């Protein structure tokens, strides 16, 4: 029994040495968004917020919003919140009814880059 425990301990040590002690973290995938992905909202939002599955490096992450003509309607650089480092948000200009495309490209703290886009629709007045 003691030999088996020793063997297990040795295996763990070798595994740790081989694999290193680096902190693990994964790719930053989109977890949820506000407005929700593919949703239709009645009241035009004043900002877009996107939550990811990992902490982000805001300096190397982008969040842009385009209207149907392809013109940018985001108003200022995207930023994270200290209390919510998984979330990226960007303020919007005053927008009206229509379909808007949100494009994001983020760098998670473990240096993995992910990107994507989604749309939401405003069906009402600003």
């Amino acid at each position, binding site marked *: 029994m003691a030999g088996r425990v020793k063997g297990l301990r040795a295996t763990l040590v070798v595994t740790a040495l*081989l*694999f*290193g002690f*680096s902190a*693990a*973290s*994964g*790719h930053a*995938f*989109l977890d*949820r*968004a506000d407005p*929700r*992905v*593919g*949703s239709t909202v009645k009241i035009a939002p004043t900002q877009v917020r996107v939550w990811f*599955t990992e902490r982000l*490096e805001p300096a*190397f992450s982008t969040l842009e919003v385009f209207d149907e003509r392809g013109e940018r309607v985001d108003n200022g650089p995207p930023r994270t919140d200290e209390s919510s480092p998984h979330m990226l948000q960007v303020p919007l200009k005053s927008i009206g009814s229509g379909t808007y495309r949100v494009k994001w490209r983020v*760098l998670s703290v*473990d*240096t*993995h*880059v*992910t*990107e*994507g*886009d*989604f749309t939401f629709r405003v069906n009402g007045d600003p």
Partner: protein
Amino acid sequence: MRSGRVAVAAATLLTLASVPALAAAHGMAGQRFFPSTLTIDDPFVADELSLPTFLHIKQPGDGEVPAGQVTNISGELSKRIFPNFGITLGGEWNLLDPAANNRTESGFGNLEVTLKYQFFTNAAHETILSVAFGWEAGGTGRQKAGAESFDLFKPALLFGKGMGDLPDPLAWLRPLAVTGIVEGVLPSRSGNKKFTVNDDGDLEVEIEKNPNVFHWGFAVMYSLPYLQAFVRDVGLPVIINRLIPLVEIDISNPLDRGFAGKTTGTVNPGIIWAGKYFQLGLEAVVPVNERTGKNVGIRGQIHFFLDDLFPHTLGRPLFGR
């Protein structure tokens, strides 16, 4: 003027140096994440570990080989040497009940080494193309447990295509993706001599033919994570929103040496749950014809994303970013 250029160059170098090394992703093309499929090879180069893959199925008899149950446990380690070029080491353990000698036999199969080059990636069209060359080293496993005494060479072309570029009216089909392989399986020997002594005490020589095989397969999958993140958040609960239902088709067409037309293959419907550091997969193994078998088998897999588990050590290419 010259000092201005030097300042610009220095600033550029400083900026580049301050940018963290950007890591490529496992099975990513644009916003598409291709999971590692259980039955057919993946089209992408990655740092990943499949351990274990478990298969259990009843197989029909073939000539002197009796019908019986096969249990196979295998593992594969894939490592990127360069960002788009990697190596995969694979091994397996077999339990044959009964084996060709009508006894229960177990042991390791032959070792396999595969080099893969992902030569094309298109983010907008979620497309990946790669070529691979596999070598199954004959004689490295136990023959009584089914390992061949000869080598197998496996040149292959692999592809992956996500449907994220479909137009808006077909948006619900965007989570679909297909991966596939076309491969030659070429034995190093055309046949094996088998010596037996007959009832009269005479030595008999029997030659078992080893055909060249055209192997092909594909996987069709519908990614619920893709649906949630890029098409429409339909409010799926936590476990469900990481599921990827799929069907894999795996077909082998022997081409010559008396085996031409004797197709074997399986249809493998199943599901993958893709988590942060690993994925779990489970499939039914349904034979396509009686030559392949009459009973449904089962295949399961645990697959680790080494690039997420160890992003600064094992999970990055040995050379290059």
